[in-house]
Every structure is written in structure tokens, then in C-alpha cells.
């Protein structure tokens, strides 16, 4: 398609943003600009956005936007990467404040406790260096770099360390180097698979001329791929991974409109090129589902017509593959709100897939927290569009990810049972819940780390402990940990709750009898079953055995955890203080006053 028939998506968004800015409508200008980044973004688009932002906001974050201290450092120049980072972070809804690194001083910056980098107090530090840095003696280089990484793991926020990208020659040496580096990096540091980014970018990754002219690596095109990878890893560390994909039906999952073309007139399957591309797209959605993404439908159609297509046409996706389904003629933004409510997942975890540009624009405008990738008119390009955005990338894949879909479907059966039960007690008793529980072990570490990093709603403190901290907890006799694995008649919910309790420091001769609840959280998929009562009872029993006399609980309010604000008072805790600044509340319970909480869960052996 040439430019005359398909106007450049980005260019028109930029033009609208400029018009709004000229009329002094800055919020409108930023909204238009941001929508331009939902399409395919090249280096020059990113530059235009970064310059627009610089001139419009004088490099200050727009009102209400979170600002984060970010350090991009390494032996080479990072200046050309900053506009890409600025633009894509803007698309993601936040504002980096960049460290101004002195050129060529990254090692001193990390090692010197009084360096500019340390004074800057980065919340996220991204290291960039290419294979060129390794020089002739790769082994010595690696030893030095590991020592740098160890220093970097303290005081520089979340640290993202690159593997090597691979030179065209001597590739094997660098593959081996990467294996060593990855195995020996401090556990709190996040590995950045530069070689994967390189292979995604292909030939475009290198630009020898840019390297020779300004010590910039990778190329302009490669820097987009790299920053997408960085931001995906950052989102995963922050627990901001998208969880739900909402798809339209007509002209999205299949070619044609069921109301006009009829069930048999739709393009799906191997018989037509269009059908082939729809089949490939459905296969891709199934692969997302297998990685734990919840697939849902939001379509303007007659429900019966839509169901008929799934019954009569042979397609990869079946009706049962969808964790939720809304087919009606209502406004889609209303339907998205209903979906969020029924799945108990907030809209900022949603990705909206629809072939209709008007629907996409409406969702972007009304629900800015929903991600709305711009789809081309060629369905064959959609898989790459979604893949390049890395919406669903996680740090580790656990058993619970793979089972999440089954868990949500079981939830719907539970909801049906709840609706037919005469009372809440009747429902909870009828679930036949069984809970296995026990301390953290290396076997459940990956899931524990994930629960800590992802749980936002039913979470009293929202502390994001790292793997290394968890390891330290496990071996520290003054820290008690517990995980909870819940099953019922409809299935296995997996590992869905945990608490961490820490003993306060004692005096010289006696251990303290004061304990604190460091973390107490539950996956949103089991809210409303009384698991928190069960968890609390185990906490009290465990602490009594340790001779505890006082238990301190902390509630740290966030935008998402208001539903647990009343948890401690309900259990009989007394308020001790309220800090004015961050609204953190501390509560105290004397152990003799702790009452066993009523629940409907039976327990089995430790897990």
C-alpha cells in the first residue's frame, strides 16, 4: 500500500499533537502523541517524540506522571539511546529522569562510593556494552566485569546487566562467555539477553559507521529492539506485566462478518490466504494462553451467531479457550470495565486487539491504561506487532502460569455454584477446600518471587523482595516464612498465599518476643474464600511455638490495595501509629488476645 492511500499513522498523530499544542491544549497534545507510539515506531519517530516532549514539558514529567531515576551506563556512548528510552517509557506511562554519565567512566562510577552515579541514586540502572569491550583476553575481562557487577548489585536500584551480543566471527567464544556470565552474576541482577535482541533485529543490529563516528552501538534500528527488551524486563521486575488479551471476533479472529457473510462465508483455515493468516493468529493466541495469558472476547455481535461460528467452523481456538466472553452491542469500553471486574484484574493489565481503528481510538481515549497496539490492515503482520511489544514477557515461567487459564475457568464454575448456594457459608463449605502449607523452599522460590512481584490487590505491604533476599530469609533463624497451596473440588489453585514474619532484635542475653509481619499476601484468584483467616491462624500458631508475645502488622496503602485496609483491625489489632507522609499504618496484637479465625479449609501435610 502506498503513502497516498494509507497515511503514515505516526505522522498524523504527531501532526494532531502539534495542532493541540498550538491551541495550548497540552494534555490533549500528549495524548495524541502517545497514541502515535502504539504503531510501529522507528528511530526517527522516537527522536521526534523525545524532542516534542523536551520542548513541551521543558524536560519535566507531565502532571501526575511517575518520574523514575534511570541510569544508562557503559563503556560506549548511550546518548543516542536516550530519545528511544524517553519515547517508549512515555508510551508506557512514566517519565525517566536520566543520569548524565561522564563518558568512559562507567567502572569508576560503579566502584567509587562517592561517584556521581551513586549520588544520583538510580532506581533502575541499565548497563550497555558490546562484544567489542571484551578485547583479546576475554577471561580476564569477564573476571573484572563480574567484580563490577557485584559492586553494582548494591545501591543502584534494579540493575540490568547485558550478556554479550555476538560478533560475526569467534561467535562460540562469546556464547561460552555468556554462559559463564549468566551463571555467575549476582542473583539480584537481571540478565539482559542482548544476543536475543540482536537476533530479533537481524542484520540491522550493527552499524559499523555509527560505531566509528560516535561510538554508538547498536544501530538506530537495533536501539528500538534493545529498549523494548529493557522496558519489558523492567515491567516484569515491577510486577506490571500485562495479563489479559481482549480480542474482537469479526475481521479479527476470522475474515468477514458473521452477520453479513454467514457462518460458512467466513475466512478461516487453510483454504484461502486470508483464512491462513487468521489461523496463524489464532495459533499465536493459543501459545499466549499456554504461557498464562488470559484470553477474552469482546465483540459487537449477536451472542448466538458468535457461538455458532465456534460450533460449526473448524478453528484452532475453541469457546473454552476464553476465560471470559462478552458478546453484545454495547459500548466496548463499558464491556472492558465489566471484563476487568469479572476477572478481578485491573485494566492496566489489559491488551485490546481489534481490527477496527475507530474502536481502538475510542479505547485509547477513554481507557488510557489499556494497551491498544495499532494493527495494520494485514493480519499476517499482527503476530509480529504483538511480539515486538513484549506485553506478556515474564522473568520466569512457573507451573502456575501454565495452569492459570484452567484456574480461571474453575473460578467460573465456582461462581456458578456461589450463585446457586443459599448462603456464603453453604458455598464455602461446599467447596471442600484443602490447604497444604509450609516454609519457603528452593522448589517454591520461583513462585514465591513471582507472587511477591506481581500481587497488588490483596497485599498488605507490597514489598518486592528479590531472590537474594528470599534466600537470606530462608537461612535466617529470626525470619519465619510460609506458603499456602489451595485446592478445592473444582481444581488446584496452586501456590496462592504467603506470609513472612521477622523477629525484632533482642537484648544481649534474651531473644525478643516481638515479631513483625513483613509480608502477608494472597493471589487475587482466591480472594473471598477465607484463606486469609486460615493463613492468619498458621501465623499465630507458628509464632506461639516461638514464644512470641507481641505481633506488629503494617499496612502500606497503594493505589490498588485498599481492600485490605481493614484487615488488621478486624483481627483485633490495635492501631499504634500513622505516619503522615506515606500513610503507612502500624498495628499491634498481643498474642494472648489472638483469636483463632473461623474458616472452611481443612489442612494436609506441609508442602
Amino acid at each position: 500500500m502506498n503513502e497516498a492511500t494509507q497515511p503514515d499513522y505516526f505522522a498524523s498523530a504527531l501532526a494532531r499533537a502539534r495542532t493541540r499544542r498550538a491551541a495550548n491544549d497540552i494534555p490533549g497534545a500528549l495524548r495524541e502523541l502517545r497514541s502515535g507510539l502504539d504503531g510501529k515506531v522507528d528511530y526517527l519517530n522516537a527522536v521526534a517524540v523525545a524532542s516534542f516532549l523536551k520542548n513541551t514539558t521543558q524536560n519535566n514529567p507531565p502532571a501526575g506522571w511517575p518520574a523514575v531515576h534511570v541510569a544508562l551506563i557503559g563503556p560506549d556512548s548511550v546518548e543516542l539511546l536516550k530519545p528511544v528510552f524517553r519515547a517508549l517509557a512515555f508510551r508506557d506511562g512514566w517519565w525517566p529522569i536520566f543520569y548524565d554519565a561522564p563518558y568512559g567512566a562507567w567502572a569508576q562510577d560503579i566502584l567509587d562510593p562517592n561517584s556521581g552515579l551513586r549520588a544520583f541514586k538510580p532506581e533502575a540502572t541499565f548497563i550497555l556494552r558490546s562484544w567489542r569491550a571484551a578485547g583479546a583476553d576475554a577471561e580476564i575481562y569477564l573476571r573484572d566485569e563480574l567484580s563490577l557487577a557485584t559492586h553494582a548489585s548494591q545501591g543502584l536500584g534494579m540493575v540490568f546487566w547485558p550478556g554479550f551480543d555476538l560478533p560475526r566471527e569467534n561467535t562460540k567464544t562469546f556464547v561460552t562467555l555468556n554462559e559463564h556470565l549468566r551463571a555467575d552474576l549476582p542473583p539480584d541482577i537481571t540478565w539482559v539477553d542482548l544476543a536475543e535482541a540482536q537476533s530479533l533485529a537481524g542484520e540491522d543490529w550493527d552499524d559499523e559507521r555509527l560505531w566509528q563516528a560516535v561510538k554508538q552501538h547498536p544501530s538506530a534500528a537495533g536501539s528500538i529492539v534493545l529498549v523494548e527488551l529493557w522496558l519489558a524486563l523492567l515491567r516484569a521486575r515491577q510486577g506490571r506485566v500485562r495479563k489479559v488479551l481482549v480480542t474482537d471476533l469479526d475481521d479479527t479472529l476470522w475474515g468477514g462478518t458473521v452477520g453479513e457473510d454467514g457462518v460458512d462465508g467466513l475466512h478461516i483455515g487453510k483454504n484461502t490466504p486470508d483464512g491462513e493468516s487468521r489461523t496463524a493468529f489464532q495459533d499465536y493466541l493459543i501459545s499466549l494462553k499456554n504461557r498464562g495469558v488470559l484470553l477474552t472476547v469482546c465483540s459487537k455481535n449477536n451472542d448466538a451467531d458468535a457461538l455458532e461460528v465456534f460450533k460449526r467452523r473448524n478453528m484452532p481456538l475453541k469457546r473454552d479457550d476464553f476465560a471470559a466472553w462478552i458478546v453484545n452491542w454495547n459500548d466496548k469500553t463499558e464491556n472492558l470495565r465489566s471484563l476487568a471486574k469479572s476477572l478481578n484484574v485491573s485494566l492496566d493489565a489489559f491488551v485490546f486487539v481489534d481490527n477496527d481503528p475507530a474502536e481502538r481510538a475510542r479505547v485509547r481515549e477513554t481507557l488510557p491504561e489499556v494497551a491498544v497496539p495499532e494493527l495494520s490492515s494485514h493480519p499476517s503482520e499482527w503476530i509480529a506487532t504483538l511480539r515486538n511489544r513484549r506485553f506478556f514477557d515474564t522473568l520466569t515461567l512457573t507451573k502456575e502460569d501454565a495452569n492459570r487459564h484452567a484456574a480461571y475457568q474453575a473460578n467460573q464454575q465456582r461462581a456458578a455454584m456461589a450463585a446457586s448456594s443459599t448462603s456464603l457459608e453453604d458455598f464455602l463449605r461446599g467447596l471442600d477446600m484443602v490447604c497444604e502449607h509450609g516454609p519457603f523452599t528452593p522448589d517454591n522460590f520461583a513462585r514465591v518471587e513471582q507472587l511477591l512481584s506481581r500481587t497488588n490487590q490483596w497485599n498488605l505491604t507490597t514489598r518486592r523482595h528479590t531472590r537474594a533476599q528470599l534466600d537470606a530469609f530462608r537461612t535466617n533463624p529470626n525470619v519465619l516464612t510460609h506458603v499456602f497451596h489451595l485446592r478445592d473440588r473444582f481444581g488446584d489453585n496452586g501456590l496462592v498465599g504467603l506470609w513472612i514474619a521477622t523477629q525484632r532484635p533482642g537484648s544481649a542475653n534474651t531473644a525478643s518476643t516481638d515479631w513483625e509481619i513483613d509480608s502477608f499476601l494472597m493471589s487475587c484468584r482466591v480472594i473471598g474464600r477465607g484463606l486469609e483467616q486460615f493463613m492468619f491462624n498458621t501465623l499465630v500458631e507458628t509464632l506461639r511455638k516461638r514464644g512470641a508475645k507481641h505481633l506488629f502488622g503494617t499496612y502500606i496503602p497503594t493505589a490498588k490495595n485498599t481492600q485490605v485496609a481493614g484487615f488488621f483491625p478486624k483481627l483485633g489489632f490495635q492501631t499504634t501509629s500513622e505516619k503522615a507522609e506515606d500513610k503507612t499504618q502500624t498495628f499491634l496484637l498481643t498474642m494472648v488476645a489472638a483469636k483463632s479465625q473461623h474458616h472452611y479449609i481443612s489442612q494436609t501435610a506441609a508442602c
Partner: protein
Amino acid sequence: MTREEKITRLQDIFRDVLDRPELRITENFSVADCPEWDSVATVQIVLAVEAAFNIRAPTEVVANLRSVRQLLELLP
């Protein structure tokens, strides 16, 4: 493409890269006329001109572009 047309296209590129929608350039326009034209912008302008005209600039120009006249010499 006439020299005038080339300058108009280059002007669009400068406007986008520097976010100066009202900017007017002539063939005498240079680094000295534009405070935003720093070393980073230099590389960005060259990359943008390369993409728009489907050409490839020498390494020397990528590092040291100073004027619109230098760019015009590169164009076919």
C-alpha cells in the same frame, strides 16, 4: 527534484528532529544558527536525511555535519 524542493524536504526533517514546526532553513543554515543542533542532533539529522532520500552518508559527515550545504552535496 529542484534545489528548492530539496531544501523544503530538508526543512521538514529539521522540523521533526528538532521539534521546531516553524523553522525556516536556507542553504546557508548551519550549526551556528540553531542552539538545538548538538552532536546528538547531528547524527539524528543525518539518519533522517538518509532515510528520506535513500542515501548513505560517509562516516565523516555522520560525526561532523555542520551545514545544510553539506547535506545538499550528498543528495542525488
